[in-house]
């Protein structure tokens, strides 16, 4: 399929400046690339070209930062380019404008947080959005539930796909690749012989690192040789000081233990700090969707203390890979939980190992990608089924070579409504089949039930070979360049 992934207006892809959504997209692209012709549409950045093709992925970057400006740029781009499926990340308010620009495309929406809340989107618009998308992917059960509660009719469209982590990059400090880095970082910051507690996240009341700072004087009385590392700046790469950051700094300055504040750490170096730490603490006070740092901490083999807020507890097996603080407004909850772990080093070690095991078995990018491929392949048309669409469904489930053939020519062969319905069903079946195949190609073993399901499919379909065409992508991008120049309007 010809697929467009539409990022948010805030940060660029690749994630030069970090960002959960940007990291997610970059993480899965290598596993999606072999199966579809993918364009990633995001915001421009002075250090990135406005259009490029890397590893078979086509990137287009348009002005953003302000939602309205970005929306207009996105719409203009989509008006000038055709896609079979458009995957929109975390911006339900982009859906209707995109639907207008692409009446035929299937739309998938990924939800990473609470953008469906009534303050963020009108009820009426949200209802239309839900009606017009084929599927809604959420990063946690919490996010899915929040949408279901507001919009029960969304239930059948929602699917949770937990995020992932690069387990080859985030490694335990004991791993041979990391030992040296761990020792050097600890030495450079006076952390040798310390038990290092790590916090990684935005410095904001929601993320609540102040509660950890409040808990530390008490912890320092009970446990010797503690140290704290805080990774994170106020707003990604900007080190601006607001009242909260000032407050946190004021508290940190008076702590009886060493506090290392790293400021902004480049996303591709952040794993070093995870490897240098001994315990990971997430202090989130708000109903958080599910913070990425949990996956990273698990991959780095760190025991986790997190809070019973939002989706965070969904990745904690209590007492196995971490502890959950039920009442995070009270710093004493952190004193108790952290103290429990610090008093039992072998338990910490076991929890860290369990975390690593979970990360490697459940939270890898190829698993995320294969689930997403399933969503794409199974995506159903939501507009009135026309011949064209029914056929588009079929074509998309074919190997990519088939897409090169003109769908219009084939369309004329199909005539009756009956045929059309049949074709649709067949396409769906094939899509399922293809998705399973892709999951395998991506190197993942499906669980037994899905494999059995796959076996039930017709033999003919099973024999369909996969032809991976990278040249197709290049052709497509050449074509795009030749398209008309949309007028430029400033709002």
């Amino acid at each position, binding site marked *: 399929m010809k697929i467009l992934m539409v990022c948010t207006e805030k940060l660029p892809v690749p994630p030069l400046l970090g960002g959960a959504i940007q990291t997610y997209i970059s993480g899965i692209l290598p596993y999606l690339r072999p199966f579809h012709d993918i364009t990633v549409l995001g915001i421009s950045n002075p250090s990135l070209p406005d259009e490029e093709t890397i590893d078979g992925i086509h990137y287009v970057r348009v002005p953003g930062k302000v939602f309205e400006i970005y929306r207009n740029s996105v719409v203009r781009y989509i008006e000038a380019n055709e896609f079979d499926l458009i995957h929109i990340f975390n911006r339900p308010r982009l859906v209707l404008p995109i639907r207008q620009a692409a009446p035929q495309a299937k739309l998938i929406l990924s939800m990473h947080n609470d953008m469906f809340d009534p303050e963020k989107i009108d009820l009426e618009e949200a209802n239309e959005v839900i009606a017009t998308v084929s599927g809604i992917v959420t990063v946690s059960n919490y996010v899915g539930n929040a949408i279901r509660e507001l919009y029960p009719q969304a239930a059948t469209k929602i699917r949770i796909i937990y995020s992932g982590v690069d387990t080859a990059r985030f490694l335990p400090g004991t791993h041979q690749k990391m030992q040296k880095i761990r020792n050097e970082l600890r030495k450079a910051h006076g952390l040798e012989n310390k038990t290092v507690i790590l916090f990684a996240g935005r410095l904001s009341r929601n993320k609540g690192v102040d509660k950890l700072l409040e808990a530390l004087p008490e912890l320092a009385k009970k446990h010797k040789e503690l140290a704290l590392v805080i990774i994170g700046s106020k707003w990604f790469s900007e080190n601006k000081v607001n*009242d909260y950051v000032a407050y946190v700094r*004021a508290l940190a300055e008076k702590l009886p233990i060493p506090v290392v504040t790293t400021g902004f750490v480049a996303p591709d170096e952040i794993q070093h700090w995870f490897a240098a730490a001994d315990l990971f603490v997430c202090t989130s006070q708000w109903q958080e969707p599910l913070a990425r740092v949990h996956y990273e901490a698990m991959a780095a083999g760190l025991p986790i203390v997190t809070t019973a807020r939002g989706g965070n507890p969904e990745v904690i097996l209590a007492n196995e890979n971490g502890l959950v603080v039920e009442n995070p407004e009270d710093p004493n909850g952190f004193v108790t939980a952290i103290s429990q772990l610090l008093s039992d080093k072998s338990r910490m070690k076991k929890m860290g190992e369990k975390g690593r095991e979970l990360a490697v078995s459940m939270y890898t990018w190829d698993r995320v990608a294969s689930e997403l491929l399933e969503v794409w392949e199974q995506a159903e048309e939501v507009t009135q089924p026309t011949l064209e669409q029914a056929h588009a469904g079929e074509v998309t489930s074919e190997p990519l070579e088939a897409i090169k053939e003109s769908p219009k020519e084939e369309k004329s062969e199909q005539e009756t409504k009956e045929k059309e319905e049949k074709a649709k069903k067949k396409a769906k079946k094939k899509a399922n089949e293809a998705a399973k195949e892709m999951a395998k190609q991506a190197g993942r073993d499906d669980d037994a039930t899905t494999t059995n399901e796959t076996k039930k499919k017709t033999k003919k379909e099973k024999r369909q070979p996969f032809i991976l065409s990278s040249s197709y992508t290049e052709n497509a991008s050449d074509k795009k360049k030749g398209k008309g120049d949309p007028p430029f309007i400033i709002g």
Partner: protein
Amino acid sequence: MLLVVFQQVEKTHAISKGGDYVERTTIEPWIVDETTHEFFVPDYIEQLADEVLQSYDLSVKSRQIVTTKPDKGGAIWKLETNRGSKSLKLLHRRPTRSLFSLGAQQYLVEVREARVPPIIKTKDGENYVEAGGKLWFVAEWIEPLAPVTKDLEGAKQLCYALGEFHRLSKGYTPPKQAEVASRVRKWPKSYQKMITKMTWFRNIANAYKDMPASPSLLEVVDEFAEQAKRGLERLHQSSYAELSKLGNAYWGLVHQDYGWSNGQMGENGMWIIDLDGIAFDLPIRDLRKLISGTMADLYRWDVTWVREMIEAYDEANPLTPELYEILLIDLAMPNEFYKNIKEIVYEPELFLGEQTKQLIQTIVETDQSKWPVLEDIQTDWKGRR
């Protein structure tokens, strides 16, 4: 070509409303120190000002900087032109936010005929020019303007003018591209923030125990925190939730920075100037700020002042008993304590000196005279409609 155009936008940042490319820079806050004069403005901003003025059908004889906001990147110039004195303003806020305020100013002048400075249109008939990633606009320079006297009479004039302003601001609909700046539904949140910050104050004073002001702060912070908590409870029990549902246009706009300098007497009555921070809100928030600020200046709460200020306001913009109750709740919040102590987070070691110790004492003493006054006026609106 698509790509080229986008690149231009990235690097240009600023385009005049008419579509002419004006310049290449983004306006940033600037540093002032001993080496710079009082109203220093970086050269590139002065150059931008030159270019912005090209969009106007004015011949400018002189331009004088009259005030700056270097930490935010804002400035005001006085212009002498062939069409009289004007002001040129560089608005430091996000352009979409500035659009909201400019729309309001236009509405107040053109639709409601309020005494606020009319906006001078560009050659293209626009309210503003976008340059350096910010909005600029030219308005009439109202002359003569004189501050009202700093006594009860002056205070009452200010209150009446404020009421008038609030009444006229009702019904404003912001332009489509503008951000909607509204505090109507944010009261519980801002009360909650105050409560949270009281905890911060306490935690910092505890962490910096040995500083001169820390013991005084610790002595009183619990009481002020209690006041804030009671305020939030009372707000929840009041008609606030119902009132806030009436919506933005119903309530109209608050100035947010109103007082003896932004409300001044002109030839045909009181004028209200500097509307950049305007936002939708329950109107009594401006009134509350004016009252509590004025009492702080008096170092004591005076029931006659408070009562007459409210009466003067009510004459121009009648208060319902429900709104009056919200006013009482807001007056009972530890506003002055909060306003003066919140700086503590920045440099606790400098802040918690002898001076702050004195300040806390003054605040506490002034606060003691507040409660009998609030008690006195509690029932003033009983039975009113």
